[in-house]
């Protein structure tokens, strides 16, 4: 059997040699065809090349077929994603079957990382940096000269890569070495960035990317601020942040000094923006509530200051409820009744500011501060200068708080306003 096969093989090879000697082939199979200088481009990519699932092979086949890099990237990414989705779905299904009682947020935390490993990183290896990433960096650093935009984009990429390879899990942040590494990366990146920029460029850079920039611009978006307003507010908030960070921590924290710092900064904000806009700055820290009020009042054609006025009513109502709660002369039943009366009063004032038709545009829990009064509860909004605002929630069924909820950051309304 083997001998006969060897004989046949020999015959076949001789025939091949003869056939090859007849002259060059007229064409090559299209599969994985490489472009030949001067040759006309081929007209397709074979299904076989695609179905291999071999991303490098698909890339080469597409390039050989004359596809532009954007198309190459699109198809290769699509193939990688398809493969990843199938794998990830199988893994998730397995998780849901085998350990459904442990399949919570923690168990799913690694899924995004898998997409990074199976799609983003292979794409980077196969096709290099996505030109759209460069375009994003260009627009992010549009205030810089072109060569520096590219440099900063490169710094971003380098550090992103280092960050991506750090293990991320719930407990890592509490490990000394991990925290140190995180700090080191942040510091080194900042050093690299600053070294690339001239002093005026650094100033513009910090205006956009300093510690406080994210928080301030978030409020600017919520209150619909102008660039001039941002440029006026940002240095004041930076100064407040610097000074408050320098205060002693924990049980040594000087609450009164901090409150005074807030009051001073508030008045500076009023001087810079005017009282009404400063007030909006404060209340826009409650971005969900404030944004919903803004949408509702704008769609009803109400005056621009309406959302801030409603938030003021919210605060006044919460403080009055706290006073009722703390009143030792009242029984729990009397307190409950007093809260209901307060609810009716607040409702009347709210109707004047934001009539019921306009309130239709609010989410279901958009007026929780008012509705909860009927349940024996009340909310006190706590506006801040930097971080988002928060509500203190109390129930008259519990003992009143030992310290009243204050809002020292809020500017004092000028007389006549």
């Amino acid at each position: 059997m083997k001998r006969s096969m060897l004989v046949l093989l020999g015959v076949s090879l001789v025939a091949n040699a003869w056939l090859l000697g007849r002259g060059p082939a007229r064409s090559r199979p299209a599969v994985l065809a490489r472009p030949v200088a001067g040759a006309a481009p081929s007209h397709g990519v074979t299904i076989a090349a695609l179905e291999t699932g071999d991303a490098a092979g698909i890339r080469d086949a597409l390039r050989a077929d004359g596809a532009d890099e954007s198309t190459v990237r699109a198809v290769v990414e699509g193939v990688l994603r398809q493969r990843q989705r199938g794998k990830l779905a199988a893994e998730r299904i397995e998780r849901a079957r085998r350990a459904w009682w442990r399949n919570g947020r923690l168990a799913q935390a690694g899924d995004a990382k898998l997409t990074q490993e199976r799609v983003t990183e292979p794409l980077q290896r196969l096709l290099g940096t996505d030109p759209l990433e460069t375009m994003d960096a260009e627009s992010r650093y549009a205030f810089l000269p072109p060569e520096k935009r590219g440099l900063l984009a490169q710094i971003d990429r380098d550090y992103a890569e280092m960050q991506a390879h750090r293990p991320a899990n719930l407990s890592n942040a509490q490990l000394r070495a991990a925290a140190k590494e995180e700090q080191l990366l942040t510091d080194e990146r900042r050093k690299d960035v600053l070294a690339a920029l001239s002093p005026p460029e650094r100033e513009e850079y910090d205006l956009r990317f300093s510690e406080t920039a994210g928080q301030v611009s978030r409020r600017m978006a919520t209150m619909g601020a102008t660039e001039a307003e941002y440029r006026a507010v940002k240095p004041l908030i930076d100064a407040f942040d610097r000074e408050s960070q320098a205060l002693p921590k924990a049980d040594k924290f000087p609450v009164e000094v901090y409150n005074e710092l807030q009051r001073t900064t508030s008045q500076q904000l009023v001087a810079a923006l005017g009282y009404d806009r400063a007030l909006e700055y404060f209340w826009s820290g409650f971005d969900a509530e404030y944004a919903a009020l803004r949408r509702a009042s704008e769609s009803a054609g109400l005056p621009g200051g309406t959302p801030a006025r409603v938030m003021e009513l919210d605060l006044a109502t919460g403080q009055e409820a706290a006073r009722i709660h703390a009143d030792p002369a009242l029984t729990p039943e009397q307190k409950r009744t007093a809260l209901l009366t307060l609810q009716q009063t607040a409702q009347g004032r709210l109707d004047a500011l934001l009539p019921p038709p306009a309130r239709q545009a609010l989410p279901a829990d958009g007026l929780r501060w008012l509705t909860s009064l009927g349940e024996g509860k009340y909310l006190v909004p706590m506006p801040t200068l930097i971080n988002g605002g928060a509500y203190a929630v109390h129930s008259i069924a519990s003992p009143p708080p030992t310290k009243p909820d204050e809002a020292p950051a809020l500017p004092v309304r000028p007389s006549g306003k």
Partner: protein
Amino acid sequence: MLEDAELLRRYAAEKSEPAFAELVRRHVNFVYACALRRVGGDRQLAEDVTQHVFTALARDAAALAQREVLSGWLFTTARNASAQVVRTERRRLARETEAQLMNELTSSPAHDAEWERLRPVLDDALDGLNDDDRQAVLLRYFEGKSFAEVGVKLRLTENTARMRVERALDKLHALLARRGVTSTTAALGLALANQAGVAAPAGLAASVTGAALRGALTAGSGATASLSLLHFMSMTKIVTGVVAVALALSVTANGYLLSRPAVASADPAPASAAIPTAAATVPLAVLARGDVAVLRDKLRAAGASEAMTRGVVEGVLRRRYREKLSAQRAEQMRTGWWKDSSWWYQTSRTQAPPRFVDDRKLLREMVLDPLDQLFGPDPDEVAEREAPFEFLPADKRAAFAALERDYAIAMSRLAGAEQNSPAGSKIIRERDERRQQVLATLSPDERAEYDLRFSPLAARLHDRMDLIGATEPEYRAIMGVIPASAADGRPALTAEQEQAMARQLVAALGYDRALDYVWAGAWEYPTYVQIAREAGLPAGTAARVLELAAETTEQARAIHANEALDVAEKRAALAALQAQVRPALNSLLPPAQQQRIGGEVLTWFTALGDGHYRFIPTGIAMGTGSIMIAGNASVETPLPRSGGRTQFVLRRPGGGGK
């Protein structure tokens, strides 16, 4: 007749070759038929795949013996092995010559028009069925079982089995219609019925049995599929195989050189001839810039698999979306950089370099909706959404999966801010109403199982279960102890209730596991677990350390509350307490490991020297993950009312302290 599982158990436990041979005899035709379809009718490849499948079966017998029904596993393994063989074959063909479609089918179905249209797309369509439906079809049509036998296998009555098969056939019919194969469900059933008649070549069962047993013995547990395939072949076979392959290549080259085909046509094959051919081409460079529906049709017509077609189309759509997103963000930066609040940008300004983050609404509009319109729901996604509801019958499972999918789609059509609007509230309300409707159809047992998985309390506990590596019985025991109302703390649990539950937990889980459970609610727990694991310390270390911390804090609080002491004496007493606790801490967590811990984790111990102490908050039903630094206290300030003290004490059975 012995069940498959029993045969597998016998083989796994006793290495019983007759048991394994019986398994091969039962299933060889089925596996061979599956493989034959997947490899385009190549008998040799189908035999290789069949051997591979049974080797894997022998290798994994112990694990697979838990399965009541083997068909699903055999089908999946045959499909995967076939895909690998086909890929390898295609690469070879692509390198050496134009592919030849080997289209030999063994028996009459090959000549049957219905079957000819069905064959290329059948397995993809079978993949699209959920497990229960696929099992039903495979048992009925590919193993030739009666409805009664299908019922026995799937633990259903004969009538239910009949309904299951019919429903599955309907679904299969719909899936095939999407792939261009239209026929009546009855015709489909007839065509499928012939599959039970596909027989493996004579002698294959015997050779497969021998080879599989040899392969299973020699293949390591981590061996790759290709390595496993090699184990089938003796050296003689390998030499013969090499010569045969060389001969085949050479002869093929003869054919190629003689015919010298021109470049393959750019025109796609018509849909009715959608049989994958290595030579069929698609002008992707051009098509990717045009209408995606055309791109889809051309890929399908050229024989691309549905998965590949979807992948390519998705890639093109995503690229367009990404381009638009970059352009939008550039415009946003140009016209309003000071109010750019897209968090992809904000959160990364200082802590990390900028990262790309999707705009969900735009992604839905430009990628996900068009994909749904072009292809219908992604089978992977459907299967994934149904998986958590596997404890339910297929119809209820599908109903839950559908309502969750509809909800996710509706919400993703709203921009971030719009979700907190009446529109968002309406979507949530509708989802809740639909959920209530489906819940109303559940039997009490089903409802109990549903609550075990999806109640608010269950959602709170899953992470905690993950942290302590709980078993299912442990989870069920814990859920039996804690009332559902504990999930939202309304009404708040009293100290007496928490104490009673702590006792019940110890009774149900044993003291050590109850301790793990309780302390897994503390935010420090994962850090101690990681440190202990990496240092090879005992499993319960984290809970023991936290137990020590809680005991220490109680003593510190007593010192703080002691009115007979002045501040200096209290400070001295805390320092003494620190010295007293140190040996116990060191024995649980050696100093080298303590050194690795940063942040606030160890301050319950380290701060004692500075006159401070810290409560370790946890709760019987509290979730985990939120960092709570609250509860710090200093002997220089008034005694806090409660801080973050726990309200319960775990008692070790048989006495002892906490």
